[in-house]
């Protein structure tokens, strides 16, 4: 009995083993690349974050010094300042770009004339290099640029006077401007309470402009996946368009919304290129972001020339990674609750 049953079982086992081996063999080129260039480098960076390292002399172990230095630096050009800046950025950019992406997607999902044309045009900013977009905005944001001109013309229509703003060099904070309007002021050492600066808001607008279309495409795809029968059934039941949107569209889009919010949050926390091209962290450090700080410390370019501090830069990068992880985790918990998994 046992001897007759054994051969097929062994054969099956052997086949499974062979298949696994083949699978790993096919995966091995990619796995090798991942292990060497992702896992390996992250592990090396983690090690570097506990050392003092300048690229050329061998790293010396300093324990938690780098983390302590990064987290204790409450100065106006320190790591905590950059975290506060990026916090303003995330809580402004993520909701706006998600809402705008959804709005654009819904508009483009309705049968309008030249639908394909509008889809292409709206998607344009996302496929253009961020360097190119930033360079264009460099001109738009000039004190003598188009944006000020438009404001000026609009204001003069109503008989009001528009004071030209130097968009990329205006460190006044949002809350500070509000306080000023009521005759108060927030002194410079209270930067925490000044809110995002005018320049920072200008960069946020630029970023919303470039990333919203990317997420629009994702929403558009998801919208087309919503079964039309649901809307038909709802309209038979007498649901209004608004009710359909709230009770069918939004819930059906929930998995995509989670993806968009998480991706948007991660991307916003890592904002770098616009800062590098347009402001270099200025004016008065109001657009200093963690990644820009990591970059400048790692390459010895703080203030235009400094000592290379790879260890400190790595420590900052890991702190940022932990923060992003926590945010993504919370968002997942919050948005996923009550979502059916498809």
């Amino acid at each position, binding site marked *: 009995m046992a001897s007759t049953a054994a051969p097929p079982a062994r054969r099956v086992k052997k*086949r499974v083993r062979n298949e696994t081996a083949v699978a790993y063999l096919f995966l091995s080129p990619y796995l090798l690349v991942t292990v060497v260039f992702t896992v390996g480098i992250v592990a090396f960076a983690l090690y570097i974050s506990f050392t003092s390292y300048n690229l*050329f002399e061998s790293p010396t172990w300093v324990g938690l010094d780098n983390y302590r230095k990064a987290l204790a630096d409450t100065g106006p050009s320190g790591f905590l300042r950059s975290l506060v800046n990026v916090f303003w950025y995330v809580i402004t950019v993520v909701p706006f770009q998600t809402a705008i992406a959804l709005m654009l997607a819904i508009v483009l999902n309705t049968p309008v004339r030249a639908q394909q044309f509008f889809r292409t045009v709206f998607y344009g900013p996302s496929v253009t290099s961020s360097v190119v977009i930033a360079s264009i905005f460099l001109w738009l944001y000039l004190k003598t640029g188009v944006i000020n001109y438009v404001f000026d013309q609009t204001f003069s229509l109503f008989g009001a006077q528009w004071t030209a703003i130097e968009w990329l060099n205006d460190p006044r904070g949002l809350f500070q401007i509000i306080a000023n309007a009521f005759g108060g002021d927030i002194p410079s050492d209270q930067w925490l309470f000044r809110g995002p600066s005018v320049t920072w808001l200008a960069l946020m607008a630029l970023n919303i402009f470039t990333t919203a279309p990317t997420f629009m495409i994702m929403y558009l795809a998801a919208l087309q996946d919503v079964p039309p029968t649901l809307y038909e059934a709802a309209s038979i039941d007498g649901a209004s368009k608004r009710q359909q949107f709230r009770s069918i569209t939004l819930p059906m889009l929930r998995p995509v919304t989670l993806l968009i919010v998480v991706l948007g949050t991660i991307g916003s926390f890592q904002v770098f290129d616009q800062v590098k091209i347009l402001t270099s962290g200025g004016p*008065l450090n109001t657009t200093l972001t963690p990644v820009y700080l990591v970059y400048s410390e790692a390459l010895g*370019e703080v203030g235009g020339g400094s000592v*290379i501090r790879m260890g400190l830069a790595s420590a900052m990068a890991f702190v940022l990674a932990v923060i992003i992880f926590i945010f993504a985790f919370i968002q997942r918990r919050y948005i996923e609750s009550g979502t059916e998994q498809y």
Partner: protein
Amino acid sequence: MKTRQLPIVVAILAMVLGACGGGEAATTADGTATTDGATATTDGATATTGGGVATTAPAGGGGAAGSCMGIAAEEGATIVFSGWGDETEQQVYRDSITRFNEACPGITVDYQPVPADFQTQMKAAFAGGEGPDVIYVDDQLMTALGRTGQLLPLDDFMAQAGVTREEFIPSLLTIFTLEDQTYALPKDWGTLGLIYLPEVIEAAGIEAPTGDWTWADLRTAAQAIAANTDVGGFCQGADWARLAPWAFSHGGSFASEDATQAMLTDAGVIQAATLVADMHEEGSLVTAADVGAGWCGEAIGKKLVGMTLEGGWMVNFMNNDYPDVDWSAVSVPAGPEGKADVIFTNGIGVNAATEFPNAAAAFALFVTGRDNQAAITETGFAYPTREDQLSLITNENDLAISEGGTFDLTRVAFWGSNSGRVNDAVSKALERIFLGEQDVAAAFQQAQEEAQLALDEAA
């Protein structure tokens, strides 16, 4: 069927991985050029070792043919030379290489300009052991490469070529000197002068600026221009480099000689900053943005201001962009301690890991040498690094501006490894003052703390 596919898959993967392995062997081979026959299997490796083999000729005993700048250069050497620079600068250095080839025909120079992000690329290249043989060196690269032993001390080669440190304008070597050794030689330099528009001066009804002016004279003139004409008086931004001549001529400095103590709350800096702040307050000093220009030079070109502090770059800029605007320059005004200016300079250094140290050093010495400096000066591109050659400058405005390099109190704003952070603290203090956020004392107190931290962390 399935079991038969497995050997094929293994064979394919083995070939793929084998090819990768072969590539690695080739790259290690050209790193160690003279290793044994293992390298001969791949074409790439033999091609790169070819250059190495040719260098086996003894360097010491070479006759006149191997001598270049008095240095026994490796015959047949090929050296890679990298620097930043726009098309104009690249042409200047291509011409320099042509002159070098005539003087030292045995050495080939492979010029590889890197116009953007030069410093970043060089740090990465040197960290990967792939740095060019000869490169431009600025304060940032001196910190990253010079202090970590990546650059070759040039003193022995200078002795062989008969070049002394004394022949250069003294402050030009500040950045490149470390523990009494010279790691790069200045390729050119710049400084600031007082730039003005004669027609604005005339319209304001005042005397034209001269080299005898003091900062007080400048202020009076700026007030007159602001009051009597519809353009701005004197243009200056929140920039450490523009404050430097004011501060140095008031006996101030951003940091002590040994770059250990920040000196931003000392009397000299505070007096200078107060003068600037007062002028901004009364409106005789405006920023470029105030008058709708990108920078103060452009404000001059567009005739939006009467005076500013700018450097030799104004000559080409005005010729190209505003050829019809008549402008003049004199040296910077004097302060209570005399005249002082700030020098900007970059050097040329040699990779310590170069295969051809003699040829590379010879090239660096030739490019920064007396004859080549004279030839470059003739093109009007840059100022010569030796004081006795300053007379070769032909443009009148350049001559006036370059005077700034010769004053006793003139210096480079270099304060050790974290110079950038120290200088940035000064710029930010001025920014806060101009925005009306802080008074001079508070702004520079904060700058002092930031600068001191930067100096402490540089050690």
